[in-house]
């Protein structure tokens, strides 16, 4: 109703601004979750071996992390305000419930920022042990902040702990809200995504250098540690994705139908790979279909009934195309990452050398950006797939948006800001990598 009065373009601008901000922040957030683990591992190797290469590596990574973390912190600040700037009505409704995990997240940020400061600037001021411990605290609180914030998002997908009377909430149970039906699956999937994306990206960057300078001790060390984080996560990710998909199937059937391009309700529904969902003709064409695959994956029963989009009124359909393609992209890239990681793991358990295989280094260099692309795609699935709701079944996005007109202006300003920041960060990180080559 508010959306209609304002005209769709304000709503669209608000959504775009939110999506841009989150899409920007999530990259730095993932790096902020995983890089401390890499730094700590390098430093730990140093205390174990006394090999100065590991110390050099830890310091180099710390330098990069300082830049990326600061950008993550400021973009995260923007997000906390934006919830009120763009969606004041969502916050009025949801504040009492999502405020609790957000407050806990605030303390996770605090410990993270405090001990990152100690870690980055304390090399000569505190004992080695204390320094390593500071690094561990940063890594743990980074993961904790991801868990708390994704709890919020899980609640938006499968709200729990509220009793509605009309348009207002009459009773809340924030604990139940925090432990809603998607919490475990989503937080697990997000954490693995951060380790897989960052680990393989770092490994890929160093693999590219190793192709030219095969015996640089520095890059070998970096490559090995990064693989140690990225490979296990990338192998586990499809398993965790399957858990997520089954949760979606159980709680958000429309989202499931949209991400699979499933228009008709059928038993023994096929799994579609690729394909073009034709919304007018209510049919997905050109897909590679694996018979009964969807029923099997989503419900672990080859003849389970999958409800299609046509079983629901059209005004509850999310935009089908981005959701379907987002899902295909995530799963495709995730499969590629898992396969390459499986090769690495195979060589590793057979005690075969990894660094000396040019084909594997090349593959890893190609796979480097996949995790981040998969992350963006995955969030598109989650967020766009939930439309028209901000909070599934409780409040619609159009009713949550601010009445402030002219939202295209802030959207444009923030878009330009993110663009400029991305350009600068890329330049800085490239020159950091180049310093060592």
């Amino acid at each position: 109703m508010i959306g209609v009065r304002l005209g769709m373009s304000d709503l669209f601008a608000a959504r775009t601004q939110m999506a841009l901000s989150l899409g920007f922040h999530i990259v730095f957030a993932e790096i902020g979750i995983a890089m401390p683990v890499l730094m700590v591992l390098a430093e730990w190797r140093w205390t174990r071996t006394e090999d100065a290469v590991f110390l050099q590596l830890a310091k180099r990574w710390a330098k990069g992390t300082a830049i990326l973390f600061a950008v993550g912190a400021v973009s995260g600040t923007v997000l906390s305000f934006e919830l009120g700037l763009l969606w004041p009505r969502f916050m009025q409704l949801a504040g009492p419930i999502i405020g609790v995990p957000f407050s806990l997240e605030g303390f996770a940020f605090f410990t993270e920022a405090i001990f990152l400061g100690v870690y980055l600037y304390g090399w000569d001021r505190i004992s080695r042990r204390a320094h390593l411990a500071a690094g561990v605290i940063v890594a743990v609180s980074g993961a904790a902040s991801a868990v708390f914030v994704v709890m919020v998002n899980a609640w938006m997908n499968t709200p729990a702990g509220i009793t509605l009377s009309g348009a207002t909430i009459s009773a809340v149970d924030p604990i139940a809200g925090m432990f809603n039906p998607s919490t475990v699956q989503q937080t697990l999937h997000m954490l693995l995504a951060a380790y897989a994306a960052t680990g393989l990206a770092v490994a890929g960057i160093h693999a590219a250098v190793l192709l030219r300078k095969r015996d640089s001790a520095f890059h070998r060390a970096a490559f090995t540690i990064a693989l140690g984080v990225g490979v296990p996560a990338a192998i586990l990710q499809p398993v965790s994705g399957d858990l997520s998909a089954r949760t979606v199937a159980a709680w958000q059937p429309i989202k499931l139908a949209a991400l699979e391009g499933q228009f008709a309700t059928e038993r023994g529904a096929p799994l579609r790979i690729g394909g073009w969902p034709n919304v007018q003709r209510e049919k997905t064409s050109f897909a590679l279909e694996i018979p009964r695959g969807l029923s099997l994956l989503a419900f672990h029963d080859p003849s389970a009934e999958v409800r299609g989009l046509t079983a629901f009124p059209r005004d509850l359909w999310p935009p089908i195309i981005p959701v379907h393609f987002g899902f295909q992209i995530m799963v495709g890239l995730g499969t590629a990452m898992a396969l390459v990681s499986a090769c690495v793991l195979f060589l590793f358990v057979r005690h075969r050398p990894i660094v000396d295989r040019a084909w594997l280094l090349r593959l890893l260099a190609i796979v480097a950006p996949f995790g981040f692309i998969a992350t963006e795609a995955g969030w598109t699935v989650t967020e766009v797939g939930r439309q028209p709701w901000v909070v599934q079944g409780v409040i619609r996005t159009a009713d949550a948006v601010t009445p402030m007109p002219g939202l295209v202006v802030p959207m444009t300003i923030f878009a330009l800001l993110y663009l400029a920041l991305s350009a600068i960060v890329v330049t800085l990180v490239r020159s950091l990598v180049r310093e060592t080559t």
Partner: protein
Amino acid sequence: MMPLETFGLPEIIAGIMLLALNAYVLTGGADFGGGVWDLLASGSSRDEQRSLIERSIAPIWEANHVWLIVVVVLLFSAFPPAFGTLGMVLHIPLSLLLVGIVLRGSAFVFRSYGGRAHGRQWGTLFAVTSLITPVILGMIIGAIVSDRVGVASTRVGTSGFVEVFVRPWLSAFTIAVGAFALALFAFLAATYLTLAADTDNLREAFRRRALGAALFVFVLAAVALALSFQAAPRVAHGVAGAWWSLPLHLGTAAAAITAIVALWRRRYRIARVAVAAQVSLVLWGWALAQLPYLVPPTLTLRDAASPRETLTLLLVGLCAGFVILIPSLRYLYHTFARASES
């Protein structure tokens, strides 16, 4: 004034929120002030001044910044309608504040880590945004106390764009409050820097700057107070009339005078405590003047408060959080007490 029997969870949470804001002003505010002195660095020790500022801020600014996030998060958790109202009416200044925060934070790290090639350009951006952001923060506070935000929130959709989304925060009074905030932050920063300085020369430079800033603080406080009689009678009368008003005024004045005398006599530790007390008392005075309102004259603390379940959990979470936070912060500040050792 609020009767004692209505003192409960909402007031406790609001008190903690105010403490967090107080911490932000004393720590993050001083970091902004540091940027001001970076911009105004001059004389033969110009480069040393900038380097001292950078070394003092670098390890702690991100932690200091989290206080602001705590305030925001507490506001939307404990008083969601207030957050909604502020987000709506103050969309423009809050967005500007964010742009300032983003540019300032990134410019600072880019300067520290980006090699020396463009160091000075980043430095300038850092300094300029340090100047603008506190002014906007002050304007936002001025807008809230002047009742205009609350009034505008009832006119969304019925009055024009300027009336609802611009007037409330753009007036002589809000600008005066903004300038006052900037002067306070600069005063804080210069006083802290006298203690961080590692040479007498630098210490003297910041002592002079602190004394100069003190002058601005007084002039701007007088201007803001004079304008408030018309623009924000609630503060003017609240501050001038209530039972706590006299002790508060005396306390603030005593702190201000102590600060200046201590600076004059080079008692820097005393000066630091006194400046911090002065700034905090100004903040508490504002908050007391607003009671029982969060967004005067429409939303009281009570009206805006989240359900009991939420507030209780928040309180538990906050207590647990502070148990971890306080020692961690002490450790941080202790580790970097002297910028010079690195």
